[in-house]
């Protein structure tokens, strides 16, 4: 009962607060308040500050009150390539509708377009951030929403660039429908828990489209990762769910659609991996479920190293990949079952939809290529086919127990 009472009380307070004391402050070239700095000084908790279209170059702007900060028709706030633009040092701040540009690069401090500094409940939405060092920087915050932002950087090399959305030591974040491009990492999460990352597009970033470090219980879904240095990296994390994402055209020598390293208990479902050099690269990945993913036209659909255990691959489609699976170990501790393999040549006499002959996804040739790189030039040679066939009949170099005992005859829809 007391719980309901308190909720009611809080509700009344929240509802009555804006009614009793909220003011609206307008900032424009012809208004009484001409600069944003003045406006921020004059505002008090709960105010709405509206900025009319115009060009504002006022150095670093520090929001210290719980205000709703609105831009009309994307007023430009310029950092003059010299400083951080918007620093938020208050709870429950809303920033909406600004064009923030020219954040200066600095090697000593992490300057950002919008920096939320150890405060909670912020909403950053529908902004454009152009030519930023760091785009949106969330430092030790919780319950923040970052959505519908366009963040466009100018990254040329990794050491002198920042991340489009950077979150550190935060929890309960919602990051959705943003477009992050040309930064070091599109979205970078370190020590971020219980957050949802959905509907974002991350492309043309130098390093990763999405980068998880030491983050647990997060979910990312329906994102698109295109043409990044290396798609998505999930490292040292637990209980991450990755659902319905697209990983496309991550090309290069150490380029992956998805890089998994030291990760436990996750779910990877309904994702599409198209035309990547390596679809999924897993090292020290344990107890993950890979279901209903499509792997198409990748160089290597999967590279699962010997340090991976107890993963289950079920109902995935492997179509037109150069190699379906490659591993560096002669033992296998993972389970592959009920997948559709494009190269499967078996038959299904009892018509139960599963092939009667097990399929061995690791080819001898992928083993040879992992030992002697240039031999890749012999791909699709008749000689190699003969070798692969011999190995298939009596496995010597490839893990004997690595096989799909019930491969699907038709692709999973």
């Amino acid at each position, binding site marked *: 009962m007391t719980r309901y009472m308190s909720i009611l009380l809080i509700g009344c307070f929240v509802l009555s607060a804006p009614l009793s004391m909220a003011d609206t402050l307008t900032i424009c070239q012809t208004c009484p308040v001409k600069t944003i700095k003045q406006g921020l000084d004059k505002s008090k908790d709960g105010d709405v500050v509206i900025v009319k279209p115009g060009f504002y170059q006022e150095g670093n702007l520090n929001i210290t009150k719980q205000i709703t900060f609105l831009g009309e028709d994307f007023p430009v706030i310029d950092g003059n390539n010299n400083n951080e633009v918007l620093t938020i040092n208050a709870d429950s701040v809303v920033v909406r509708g600004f064009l923030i540009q020219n954040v200066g690069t600095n090697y000593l401090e992490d300057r950002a377009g919008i920096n939320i500094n150890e405060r909670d409940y912020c909403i950053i939405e529908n902004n454009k951030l152009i030519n930023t060092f760091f785009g949106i920087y969330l430092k030790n915050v919780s319950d923040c929403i970052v959505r519908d932002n366009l963040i466009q950087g100018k990254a040329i090399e990794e050491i002198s660039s920042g991340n489009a959305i950077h979150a550190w030591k935060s929890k309960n974040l919602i990051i959705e429908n943003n477009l992050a491009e040309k930064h070091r990492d599109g979205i970078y999460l370190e020590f971020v828990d219980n957050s949802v990352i959905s509907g974002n597009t991350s492309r043309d970033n130098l390093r990763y489209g999405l980068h998880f470090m030491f983050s647990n219980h997060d979910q990312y879904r329906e994102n698109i990762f295109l043409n990044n240095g290396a798609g998505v990296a999930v490292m040292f994390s637990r209980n991450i769910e990755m659902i319905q994402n697209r990983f496309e055209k991550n090309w290069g020598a150490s380029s992956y659609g998805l890089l998994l390293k030291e990760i436990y208990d996750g779910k990877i479902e309904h994702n599409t991996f198209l035309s990547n050099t390596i679809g999924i690269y897993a090292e020290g990945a344990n107890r993950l479920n890979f279901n209903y993913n499509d792997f198409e036209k990748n160089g290597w659909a999967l590279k699962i190293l010997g340090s991976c255990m107890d993963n289950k691959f079920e109902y995935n489609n492997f179509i037109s990949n150069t190699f379906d699976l490659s591993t560096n170990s002669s033992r296998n501790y993972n389970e592959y079952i009920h997948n559709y393999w494009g190269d499967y040549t078996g038959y299904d006499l009892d018509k139960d939809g599963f092939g009667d002959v097990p399929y061995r996804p690791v080819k001898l040739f992928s083993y040879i290529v992992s*030992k002697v790189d240039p031999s890749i030039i012999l791909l699709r040679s008749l000689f*190699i086919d003969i070798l692969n066939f011999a190995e298939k009949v009596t496995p010597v170099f490839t893990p004997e127990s690595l096989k799909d005992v019930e491969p699907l005859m038709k692709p999973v829809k």
Partner: protein
Amino acid sequence: MLKIFKYSFFDLIRSRWIYAYFSFYLITAISLLYISNDLNRAILSLMNIVIILSPLIGTMFGVMYYYNSREFVELLLAQPVKRTAIFLGQYLGLTVSFSLSFGLGLGLPFLFNGILGSEEIGNFLILLLNGTLLTFIFTAIAFLISLLNENKIKGFGLAIIIWLFFAVIYDGLFLLSLVIFEDYPLDSFALIASIFNPIDLSRIFMMLQLDISALLGYTGAVFNKFLGTNMGIVVALISSLLWVFIPVKGFLHYSLKKDF
């Protein structure tokens, strides 16, 4: 030369062999398209067939045709016709008719499956080009072999060995040397070694189209330059043309010297 070309061409397109060759590719293409229901995968399977079969048919039929038409050649040699014209005419008659039946056999089913409007048209053209080039190369080699060997059995044997060498043994030796000399930088060696085998060249064409994702995973700079740019295609094409030119030149040269 044109007359001789015309004669052997019309002679050949009436022969059973050409029809058999044509219908083989027709049936294979139709059934592959029917089974896979996907242009890309059908092309992939056909590439694997073409790079093995075109050289085989090219060499075997080239040798056979030469030995069978030997009397006709001797008759022509008695006439005031240039020797190069006789052999070049026969060579072209054979290769053009085979390439035509190959092209039609594959082309018709794909045409009906809408290849023209699809994005696979590039891959399909590469496939046709590959098959045609291989036919030209291996028929020339076959002519050279049969000109050098009066003995039919020896000629056939040599033709089979040559085919087997380029199709399988060469790659085996190639791989072996890569494994043995693993510790050395082998990029350039690997590329040059594949230039010396026309079947490998065709494979490179194919890989550049289909496996580019995997190829870009390799770190060697020479490789990347070769495979990642148009240079790969250009070099492979030029080398293939050289592979046609040199054996043709060879058998023409030898035909002038040979005492019939």
